[in-house]
């Protein structure tokens, strides 16, 4: 329960970049509850894997928190209705990555009163029961990857877990949702961490936060000393600012000094990583039995009238967010769902927010770069920037020469598409796109 501001090695060793942070637009703004729009559109592919199957029909009346879609295939979690209302239709809607995906549209019932949740004791519950609650609440990694949390919290029996790492790095520029969570809900995050520790049956937790968020470090350090108990050891650690610190493997190296072997999961070296916002969601799921159907997102960029941190219902459309925040400013060039380094550009406002949407960025001309790319000059900057020690330039050259299938030896499947290489490339080469293509074709070839 101590803060060590001068930890000898408090960042990852290989690569990394320092993009302009741009967090000042929203860092000081408290989380604002956005009024519920008239309609919500809940996509059934909230996480990786197969879409959920709806268990409601058109015109069904729903209560707040009711399960509207269940998992029938593979890994996954159910989808809940964020409001009381009526099912308008079961159709498809746009999705930032899958383009089009099945969805359920709900018309909000304005008359219904908000659901009330009462606090429940969890300290003496069986870890398996707690794990069941996490699953039933539909919790997935809200940091961005969207992996079902209950799967991550039940590592294979032969892996011995000893440390829980909470990810408060939030290294992507612009995004401040986790920072606001840490500042405004530190006690809940700490209790969430204690719940995770109980599920995993361990006692050691480290919260890694980048040093550009001193308010969050202070808040969590204080909460850890006030709300901790003697059985568990929760430690807050300030990390040197470097992108992509928030990536699982990099964060583990930053806080524990251990390196995850190639193609392995963190559980192989005894670590489980969860985002701080996921810890808050776990707190809500276990203490209040409230499903995950709301989410804090950062709406930022110079192309939006009033940048803000908003608490929105999952299924709110980007258009509704824009209307609430006073509209778009002239000069808007690009809309990105997610961070500027790893997010996906979209071309419509008619797109619903999912559980993994961490931010919506409205970027103007001077915040993006659309200059055409040229040939690789073999300067090797991308090799220096890559946190995984890969060779992005080589992958790009292979893809351009129509040999994408042969890129597996360059470790394309280790690449998590952080974008550091494309960020430093002086030839402006779309290296992440090359890698995505290479992954697609190399997989198809296997």
């Amino acid at each position, binding site marked *: 329960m101590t803060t060590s501001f001068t930890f000898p090695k408090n960042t990852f060793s290989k690569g990394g970049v320092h993009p302009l942070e741009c967090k000042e637009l929203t860092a000081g703004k408290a989380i604002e509850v956005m009024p519920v729009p008239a309609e919500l559109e809940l996509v059934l592919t909230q996480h990786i894997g197969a879409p959920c199957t709806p268990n409601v029909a058109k015109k069904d009346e729903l209560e707040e928190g009711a399960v509207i879609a269940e998992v029938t295939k593979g890994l996954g979690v159910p989808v809940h209705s964020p409001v009381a209302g009526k099912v308008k239709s079961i*159709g498809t809607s746009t999705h*930032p990555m899958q*383009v*089009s995906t099945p969805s359920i549209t709900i018309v909000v019932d304005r008359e219904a009163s908000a659901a009330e949740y009462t606090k429940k004791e969890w300290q003496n519950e069986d870890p398996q029961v707690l794990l069941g609650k996490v699953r039933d609440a539909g919790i997935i990694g809200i940091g961005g990857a969207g992996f079902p949390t209950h799967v991550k919290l039940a590592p294979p029996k032969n892996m011995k877990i000893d440390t829980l790492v909470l990810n408060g790095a939030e290294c992507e520029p612009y995004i401040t949702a986790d920072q606001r969570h840490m500042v405004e809900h530190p006690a809940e995050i700490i209790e969430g961490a204690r719940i995770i520790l109980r599920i995993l049956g361990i006692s050691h937790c480290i919260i890694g936060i980048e040093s550009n968020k001193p308010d969050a470090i202070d808040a969590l350090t204080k909460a850890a000393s006030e709300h901790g108990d003697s059985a568990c050891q929760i430690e807050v650690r300030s990390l040197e600012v470097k992108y992509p610190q928030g990536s699982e493997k990099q964060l583990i190296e930053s806080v524990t000094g251990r390196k995850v072997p190639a193609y392995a999961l963190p559980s192989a070296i005894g670590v489980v990583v969860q985002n701080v916002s996921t810890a808050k969601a776990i707190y809500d799921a276990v203490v209040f039995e409230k499903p995950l159907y709301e989410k804090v997102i950062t709406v930022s960029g110079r192309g939006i009238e009033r940048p803000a941190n908003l608490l929105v219902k999952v299924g709110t459309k980007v258009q509704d967010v824009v209307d609430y925040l006073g509209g778009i400013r002239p000069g808007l060039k690009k809309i990105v769902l997610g961070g500027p380094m790893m997010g*996906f*550009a*979209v*071309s*419509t406002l008619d797109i619903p927010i999912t559980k993994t949407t961490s931010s919506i960025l409205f970027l103007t001309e001077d915040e993006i770069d*659309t200059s*055409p*790319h040229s040939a690789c000059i073999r300067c090797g900057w991308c090799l220096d920037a890559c946190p995984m020690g890969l060779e992005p330039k080589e992958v790009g050259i292979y*893809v*351009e020469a*129509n040999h994408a299938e042969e890129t597996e030896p360059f470790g394309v499947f280790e690449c998590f598409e952080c974008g550091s290489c494309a960020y430093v490339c002086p030839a402006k080469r*779309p290296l992440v*796109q*090359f890698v*995505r*293509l290479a992954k*697609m*074709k190399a997989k198809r070839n296997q």
Partner: protein
Amino acid sequence: MDAELIKLALGGIALLACIGLFFGIGLAIAAHKFAVETNPLIEEVLESLPLAQCGGCGYPGCEGYAIAVVNDPEVPPNLCFPGKEKVANTVAELTGKKMAAVEDQIALVRCSREEGRVSHKHEYFGFASCTAANISFGGPSACQYACIGLGECAEACPFDAIDMVENFPEVNPDKCVSCGICVKTCPKTIIELQTLRARVYVPCSTKDLGKTVKAVCKVGCIGCKMCVKACPADAVAYEDNNVKIDHKACIAYGPSCEEACVTKCPRDIFRHYQGRQAIARGAADGLKMAG
């Protein structure tokens, strides 16, 4: 001349001749002893193939197919698309296999983006390949089943049979041998192989609902199923939100239906198809191979 020098020269020649003879005999023995037995049939089959090395048969080049067709009784003799019926007959004759009918096919791009004036939903910057554009939010076209038009199929075609005309692929019927490489390449999977004897075709691949299609394309299929009802031969089906034509049934029924499907289509997307000859003659009735 100095007798010493002649002696030296003769000695050298004799030595070299001995070495040559030694290696010659060695190689002759080795060639005989380590000879790899090849089936002369494979050679013959290989010679009958067009040697385009397109891989359309699914084997690594023409030799791969020749070996497979000779050694594996399961491999049919009509897999060589560029060779057409003539090669298939020769291969069948050589291998003694039963010859199945060879259908003359041609690649058909099932999209009418140009006519439909499908709008762009965003500008695309980056690597100019259809697959790359497709992974960023489904490509720049407002219709997610529309041809992207960056010419990956034209680049992949081993016979140079696809030309990009105003960012849209046009299949050259004289060059297309229906190897199917473009079908596998297209990330939107909108290229199909269609029999040249087909009477009708639908140059639209959308799986969207009518409402969505109407919003983005002027000629896209809206799934009204008028064609399905109109066809007296039950040759038109609407499966998986897409029109499927059973060309066999359609051709078997013959022209007595007067192409009811084409007349009934309210979007003019059900079209007459006149095959290679008509196109080669440059038929002026607005027929455009690639939609």
